[in-house]
């Protein structure tokens, strides 16, 4: 067991709408990321992936509110800190975040180097500009970006280049945890591969200690991360290593997600994709029992009444279903 970099225990956060309704977008989520490991988070749109990313940074702005649970980064409990302390001492240095719309994150009137100066001056106000330039140049070249980018404006860069520049800027202070929220969904396959290569590079060179990668592309997660966690309607429904999750998914929802994978390999053309019917539940009025019951093919009368907890199974895996894992696997084999 490596050193635990990020540890989250029973985290619950909610949105308060303008009508005063509580929407629990992250509900009782626990996770740990060890040093040198990466965790992938998968799920449909609206399942709480991005809210989890925001909550992990401990940076709560209305309508997002903290309810309960603990987040500790490298032993420091950040849920008890004031927002100002978090902004000054945690963000950028301990946790870095790449937003979903990173393509639009750069101000078109500034040169790339001035963003880097901004980031560094926020934490070390006295560092001279020449040193910053040398440091940025060295880092950019190591990551395979040309140093000329530093003196350009963001409009001169292509989409893939912009995305990689944003990653380089947000990791310039060597944070312990990098949270990447769909960093490659807006890119074509070749640029996507370059982004992935760069993230791997950052991990291998030790500039970031651990990574959380959020996406809905499962083949990508399999190639990038060590563990995969599947979320549904704010809850974790299954956790396991990448290999286990792709080849032997247990929860019916994970199974459905794996069924929607498309790869250009011989023989995949005639296989009918099995999309999950229906839509996710409305988080404002959640059903009483299992949240997936309405769309599940293995539903029993008990599912709709009793809420289900996470169950341990096998070697560090857990899933949220009242049916035994072996029975579910048997069911999938007979399909």
């Amino acid at each position, binding site marked *: 067991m490596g050193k635990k970099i990020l540890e989250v225990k029973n985290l619950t956060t909610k949105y308060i709408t303008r009508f005063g309704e509580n929407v629990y977008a992250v509900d009782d989520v626990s996770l740990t990321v060890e040093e040198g490991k990466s965790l992938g988070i998968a799920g*449909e*749109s*609206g399942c709480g992936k991005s809210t989890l990313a925001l909550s992990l940074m401990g940076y709560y702005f209305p309508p997002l509110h903290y309810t309960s649970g603990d987040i500790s980064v490298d032993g420091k409990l950040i849920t008890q800190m004031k927002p100002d302390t978090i902004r000054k001492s945690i963000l950028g240095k301990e946790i870095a975040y790449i937003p979903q719309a990173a393509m639009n994150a750069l101000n078109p009137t500034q040169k790339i180097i001035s963003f880097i100066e901004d980031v560094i001056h926020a934490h070390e106000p006295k560092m001279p500009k020449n040193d910053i330039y040398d440091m940025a140049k060295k880092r950019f070249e190591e990551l395979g970006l040309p140093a000329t980018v530093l003196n350009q404006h963001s409009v001169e860069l*292509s*989409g*893939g280049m912009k995305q990689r520049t944003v990653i380089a800027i947000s990791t310039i202070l060597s944070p312990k945890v990098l949270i990447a929220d769909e960093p490659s*969904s*807006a*890119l*074509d*396959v*070749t*640029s*996507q*591969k*370059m982004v*992935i*290569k760069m993230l*791997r590079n950052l991990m291998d060179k030790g500039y970031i200690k651990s990574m959380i990668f959020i996406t*809905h*592309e*499962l*083949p*990508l997660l*399999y*190639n990038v991360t060590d563990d995969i966690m599947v979320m549904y309607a704010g809850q974790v429904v299954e956790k396991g290593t990448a290999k286990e999750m*792709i080849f032997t998914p247990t929860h019916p929802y994970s199974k*459905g*997600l794996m*069924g*929607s*994978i*498309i*790869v*250009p*390999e*011989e023989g*995949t*053309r005639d296989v009918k*994709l*099995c*999309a*999950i*019917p229906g*839509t996710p539940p409305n988080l404002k009025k959640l059903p009483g029992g299992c949240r997936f019951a309405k769309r599940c093919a293995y539903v029993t009368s008990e599912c709709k009444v009793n809420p289900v907890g996470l169950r341990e199974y096998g070697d560090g895996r857990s899933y949220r279903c009242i049916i035994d894992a072996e029975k579910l696997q048997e069911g999938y084999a007979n399909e």
Partner: protein
Amino acid sequence: MNNKRNLCLSGKNVTKVFGLGNKKNVAVDNVDFEFYEGDLISIVGESGSGKTTLAKMLLGLTKITKGEIFFQDKLRDISTHKKKKEYWTNIQAIFQDPFSAYNTFLKIDSVLLDCINMRGGKHFAMDKKIQLMTEACSFVNLKYAELTNKYPFELSGGQMQRLMIARIFLLKPKILLADEPTSMIDACSRATILDMLMNLRNEIGTTIIFITHDIGLAYYISDSVYIMEHGKFVERGTAEEVIIHSKADYTKRLISDVPKIHEEWDLTTV
């Protein structure tokens, strides 16, 4: 394959040049193509390879610098506004971003009612119109009763894109041009949308031109595939020919860039 195959849309030496002199940029370079009726055709390429420019020319949204486009074996004439409107009854499009495709001030009912009115349903009784709308919604697995009196922004991205397909179902065009319809949608709804496009083809016989950068999707959905690089078609043929037995280096590179699950993904090639 059908014995009798009619040409639906074809082009000869189609070229599009942006700018002049030193800043000349050839977006689409002398391409020929033949799209047959009832086929599902994919055009695959990276960003900046000229896919969308070609799509805009097919739709008649931008002028062609050089070359000709034939619609049903006749030279396409869109010189006047009236002729353009007539052409657009035959060709319709679905775009990448479902969020900006709708008029925010119009309710969903009126979006669908417009389509019925445009296809000569103006004098129908309200009952008949509702029946048609319900039919179109159930074709894309939506419930009309839940949608009525709602605005487009109250729907999710996948639902909006499905409503777009319901529109096409009512309009019944000869050709549907789908420009990356699934790139902003999560993997799970993507499968549903692809299946719906295939149903649409089987049900009303629309020729579908599917533009994508994901070669996996192209292999799953299409009959014939065109691979585009720097404004030129580098490879064309049936899906099996192009993707499983590909010849061009560019195609091979595109395939190797897709994340794999059954073999090792080689990260050193980029």
